[in-house]
């Protein structure tokens, strides 16, 4: 069942087109990796999918009863400032907010979920620490735990392993694969082509201003775009 359908999508900033004519479909349970060079519009595409940015033209349709309250999101950089006082637990719990509706406080189940996700991302010991004092990799794990709390049906990740050491990156990929196995749709931006090919079911390769490839991972490896990217 298609959860997200993009038709002839064109995205840009202030009249400048970044990427045009993107068409692709994401079905429930898919694991889509978006690859491409810096500046090819991957993060812009993700913002459009999250409805943080309106496309210049084209359509993004959601299906299968997907609402915003079932979306998890791991941004590349948080807008949060350097001196923001927030404990890791407070940050992770804020991922549960979309389950609360108008209820002012977190339920026991939501608190438990936050603890479980901190456990899964290996940051339980940091729960009381101040978010701004963590290393880049630890912050990334905290944000992933927050995204996991928010992800009901789909999770969007913008370079989840940026700033992680190889062991932590491998753990992160396993965690995402496990989530995908539990029927959560994954859309991930990555520069790590080896991991993309290993884990993803589908690949979207964005080239200079348009899509070079969209389809199954196996087909991608045979395609021209895939072979040329693989050589790099």
């Amino acid at each position: 069942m298609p959860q997200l359908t993009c038709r002839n999508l064109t995205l840009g900033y202030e009249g400048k087109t970044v990427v045009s004519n993107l068409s692709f479909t994401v079905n429930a349970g898919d694991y889509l990796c978006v690859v491409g060079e810096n500046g090819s519009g991957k993060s812009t595409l993700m913002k459009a999918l999250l409805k943080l940015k309106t496309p210049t033209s084209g359509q993004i349709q959601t299906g299968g009863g997907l609402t915003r309250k079932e979306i998890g999101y791991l941004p590349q950089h948080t807008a949060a400032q350097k001196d923001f006082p927030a404990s890791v637990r407070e940050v992770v719990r804020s991922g549960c907010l979309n389950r609360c509706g108008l209820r002012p406080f977190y339920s026991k189940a939501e608190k438990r979920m936050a603890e479980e996700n901190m456990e899964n991302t290996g940051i339980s010991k940091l729960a009381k620490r101040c978010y701004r004092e963590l290393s880049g990799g630890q912050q990334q794990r905290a944000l992933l735990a927050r995204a996991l709390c928010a992800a009901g049906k789909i999770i969007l990740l913008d370079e989840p392993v940026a700033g992680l050491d190889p062991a932590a990156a491998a753990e992160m990929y396993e965690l995402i694969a496990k989530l995908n196995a539990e029927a959560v749709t994954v859309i991930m931006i990555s520069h790590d082509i080896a991991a993309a090919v290993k884990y993803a079911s589908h690949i979207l390769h964005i080239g200079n201003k348009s899509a070079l490839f969209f389809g199954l991972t196996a087909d991608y490896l045979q395609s021209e775009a895939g072979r040329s990217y693989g050589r790099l």
Partner: protein
Amino acid sequence: MTELANKLASYFEFPFVRHAMIVGALTALCSSLLGVTLVLKRFSFIGDGLSRVAFGAIAIAAAMNLTNSYLLALPTTVIGAVLLLRSGGGNATIKGDAALAMISVSAMGVGYLVLNVSSTSSNLAGDVCATLFGSVSILTLTVTDVWLCAVLSALVILVFLLFYHKIFAVTFDEDFAAATGTSAKAYNLLLSAVIAAVIVVAMNLVGALLISALVIFPALSAMRVFKSFKAVTVCSACFSVVCASAGILVSILAGTPVGSTVVAANAAGFCAFGAVGFVLRRN
């Protein structure tokens, strides 16, 4: 010491002193709660700009001979807050800081102009000074003023408690909140309305020019020492109430202007917290 206590006790027999303490503590509490969000969202100056808008509105209300200037000042300031916080968002043609400067100076200018043209009072300079620095107004509060302040404060505190987690999320990472289905725009709007209400209430205590102190000092002081949002919020609320009460007491005993004494108490508190924070970081 007992002499001082006796003197204080005798002062507290006067209703206007009790009123001043109640209004002072409530105002300080409300402004410090929102101050945390304002400082973290880099909107510290909005309080300042809004107080000038409120000043303009109160001046116009005075010129129109309205019996209760709140009726005009509150809605005007709310509209000002919504416009200012939206223009801070990035897509506006006039950028946030410029828009803020523009609105605040024109509100000040027009306000003083209107007062000057229409005022029948013999002591215009004194009236303006009182509105700007709040020098006497807190000691001349009527029972209605106290009730109005209490109701508005209760509303502000209620909104803050009910939406505490949402306010945290929208302040910490607006994009994430919006992407995952928390209506960031609606909460920003709610915040601006509440901030405007606080500003109008706080004008009674410290006057238009000194309000920023009530908004900024408690949050910044708490942030020197504490590192979680909850601890900072609780600490800044306590800090603010203690400083405001101390300031009012000192001003009553020493006969200094209320507003500026409260601000001085806040500044002194900030220095103390700064020192504590420095020592904590060294260890």
